[in-house]
């Protein structure tokens, strides 16, 4: 099982970009950390989430 934003999920080797879309985020408004390391945006469509990965998808909202 992978852990995505603290939740245990069967990631089924899915692409990061698919998870971003599933969560309702826009790729231009997120930062993705995999096992504590930032994932470059260019790699979203090519990186698969494997079991044991800890993924944090931070979606930003406007205001400041």
């Amino acid at each position, binding site marked *: 099982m992978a852990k995505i934003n603290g939740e245990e999920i069967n990631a089924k080797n899915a692409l990061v970009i698919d998870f971003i879309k599933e969560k309702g985020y826009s790729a*231009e*408004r*997120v*930062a993705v*950390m995999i096992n*504590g*390391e*930032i994932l*470059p*945006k260019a790699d979203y469509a090519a990186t698969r989430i494997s079991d044991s990965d800890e993924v*944090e998808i*931070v*979606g*930003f*909202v*406007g*205001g*400041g």
Partner: protein
Amino acid sequence: MEITEEEFARAVNSRSKFPIYEKMKGAVIGVAGLGGLGSNIACALARSGAGTLIAADFDEVELSNINRQMYTLKHIGMKKTQAIKEIISEINPFCKVITHDIFIDGQNCAEIFNGCEIVCEAFDNAESKAALVNGLLLSNKEVKLISGSGMAGFGRANDITTKTVSERFFVCGDMKTDVSDGEGLSASRVMVCAGHQASKAVELILNR
């Protein structure tokens, strides 16, 4: 009023069991954006004795900023970088403020904030927030980044938290209230978020 740095340090350290000023004096902290979040973060850090702030924004102070930003009516029309420098000099004249009057993006952020141990992301725009976080965390493997996301509207102050995303990436806010939903922005709620960001920065410096 003329004061010496020793007097200022003693005042910062008063009622504390351990020295705060001496640790804060050695800190170099970046503030990316000098609006509601950034102007409040910069002043809070200066009051705690921050030695060096790298403050960056391309914008000028306007009337619509006064509802939540540290500026006063006399600053309208001034560059935010110059206005914040002036305000901080009146709070803590021993705080060095290095300014960059520039639009920060994912490319130039590494150079602007070179040498910072901590950068507080304090932009208004969600895409700009994401661009800075991605750009800075990828290009600088040492810097700690404290971001703000979700502080529009009024009330619900307890919904604003500091989330530890990784050892060097923290996000403060309620993570969901978007200004584009039409809730407006208020000094009180923006200051709660700015307070979280500044507080995390001070904590990281005092605990190192």
